[in-house]
């Protein structure tokens, strides 16, 4: 078990390594291949009125003249031992793990990211609770009443849920629930849960529901399909033959087995969302990781992009690992090797 986790973690680090190389290459190599010089690159990160000299100095300061490997090495060095930076009056050490400083705002990347993490966490976890509860419950009920009006209706809604772009539902719901009806709080006004749980929930309600609407749909469909399959398994028949009450058959025997694939999907989805609910955050202008990513990219802010990609990839990988571990807990047949 321990060695398994260790091995997976090593693999995860290797994976992150590859991800970082690819990101780095895209941001450095592609513009270079397209014919941009080091000064061209640097010119993005100087003030409005900078002259050639300042641009050149900036290119030197940011190390754009170094071979790409050296530049990448510096990035890796930052992660493992940290880097030094001249902030004007002195030199500052950014301790490991350090993703460097934003080229644009000059802020260190990691604290910025961590700063935004609670928002993304609140958004993703809250929505996850909503969608899992609704999705799974709907799925189970639909499966049990296969072909009924409820089944048709909820599956119809579920299909609509996965067919609507979130930036559309998000804006429409904002326009209706906030602007017209004034039912929910200021979405963009994020308050930490520790400070005021009620406002926190009230302000996040709309993004939660919107996001959950999108995801619950998938879960309802998955649960329904899984449930239909499990309920035709032999062991369900056995449970019935024992004289077990139907409710217990469904919940204890049926649902338990259905939840494994749901768990997998949940892990992957959550991992992806934690790495930045890009569209949701953009739509509701929640300053989370996803918004950060979009801003970083539109600013060509490489350290930020590297940081956010790696953090997001780490979440995905971590979620995968946790799912696998949980799987072994849930399903005794799975052995971790």
């Amino acid at each position, binding site marked *: 078990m321990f060695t398994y986790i260790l091995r997976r973690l090593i693999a995860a680090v290797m994976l992150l390594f590859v991800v970082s190389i690819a990101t780095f290459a895209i941001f450095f190599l592609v513009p270079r291949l397209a014919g941009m010089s080091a000064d061209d690159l640097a010119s993005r990160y100087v003030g409005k009125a900078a002259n050639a000299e300042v641009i050149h100095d900036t290119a030197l300061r940011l190390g754009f003249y170094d071979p790409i490997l050296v530049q990448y090495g510096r990035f890796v060095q930052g992660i493992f031992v940290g880097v030094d930076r001249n902030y004007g009056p002195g030199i500052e050490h950014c301790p490991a793990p350090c993703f460097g400083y934003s080229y644009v705002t000059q802020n260190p990347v990691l604290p910025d990211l961590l700063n935004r993490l609670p928002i993304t966490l609140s958004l993703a976890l809250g929505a996850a609770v909503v969608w899992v509860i609704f999705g799974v419950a709907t799925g189970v009920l639909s499966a049990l009443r296969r072909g009924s009006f409820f089944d048709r209706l909820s599956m119809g809604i579920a299909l609509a849920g996965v067919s609507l772009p979130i930036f559309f539902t998000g804006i429409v719901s904002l326009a209706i629930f906030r602007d017209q009806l004034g039912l929910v709080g200021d979405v963009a006004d994020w308050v930490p849960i520790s400070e005021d749980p009620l406002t926190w929930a009230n302000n996040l309600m709309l993004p939660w529901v919107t996001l959950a609407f999108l995801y619950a749909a998938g879960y309802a469909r998955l649960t329904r399909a899984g449930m239909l399959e499990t309920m035709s398994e032999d062991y369900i028949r056995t449970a019935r033959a024992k004289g077990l009450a139907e409710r217990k058959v469904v919940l204890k025997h049926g649902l338990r087995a259905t939840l494994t694939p749901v768990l997998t999907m949940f892990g992957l989805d959550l991992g992806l969302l934690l790495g930045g609910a890009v569209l949701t955050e953009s739509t509701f202008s929640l300053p989370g990781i996803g918004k950060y990513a979009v801003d970083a990219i539109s600013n060509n802010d490489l350290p930020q992009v590297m940081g956010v990609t790696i953090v997001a990839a780490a979440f*995905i990988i971590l979620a995968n690992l946790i799912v696998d571990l949980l799987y072994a807990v849930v399903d005794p047949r799975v052995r971790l090797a």
Partner: protein
Amino acid sequence: MTAPLDVPGSAVEAGPETVLEGAESSVIRGRSLGQIAWMRLKRDRIAMIGGIVIILLILVAIFAPLLVSWFGHDPAEWHREKIDPAIQAPIGSFGGMSWDFLFGVEPTTGRDLFSRILYGARISLLIAFFATLLCVVIGTVLGMIAGFFGGWVDTVISRLMDIFLAFPLLVFALALAGVIPDKAFGMSGDTLRISLLVFIIGFFNWPYIGRIIRGQTLSLREREFVDASRSLGARSHTILFKEILPNLLAPILVYSTLLIPSNILFEAALSFLGVGVRPPTPTWGGMLAEAVHNYDVAPNFMIFPGLAIFITVLAFNLLGDGLRDAFDPKAR
């Protein structure tokens, strides 16, 4: 020897199954699984509606210029006379909807929403189709190879899939779409943007179908007909393409149909985030992105592209679900 229960003497005369004969009179032409699926699909009304909508959409996309010439105006043509100069909103109720402008007009420019939606369908569908094609081709080939050959080949390809799956896709797509120069690979303008979007969406989505195909191949590989073919001396590529691939066509078809809508949404998301096809070429996502800042000014500007995306994606999902059921051996 009298053996009344026995089949008569020679094996040559061993009786063909009576039951089968009785059931299906003299139709000799066999029905393939595909034909059976098609029969089942035909009975699935909802899926058929999805399919019909898709066909209509494709027709609309193909004949957009014709339709626009009948019912609309040039999608790039401004109609400032339809705009209230004070607030830049369309004149008239419902965003200026009229017989002349079926869906009303865009705020500020007064462009005909109807024709922009129609032209938008071309780009959206084009990108989604080709991106899906790319995913499916890469995913199928690599998934099949990984599943069939196993061993280190599988390890390498599976790790590759892990890497792709670990990329925060949207972030990455945004990044890539952002850094690509204006002219590359001998292309420029819309052609380049569209190719780029196709590439990004297709190239980063393949592991999803790749995994499915790999899994299917793994299980198909264990089926005895593969051994049978091998024991006849068939080469690997023959087995792969003649024996295994035909059995993958159903899942490929089903997942392609389900992948198209997700790719439509993906394209819309990219356009929404500002890295889609360049203006004034209309795309649904791009229109939505603009509409977001104007939903109060002209709700129809937002609703129609939203509806267009919704209907298209829904139709594909419906058809995909229907196909999945039709091909599902477990279904009745």
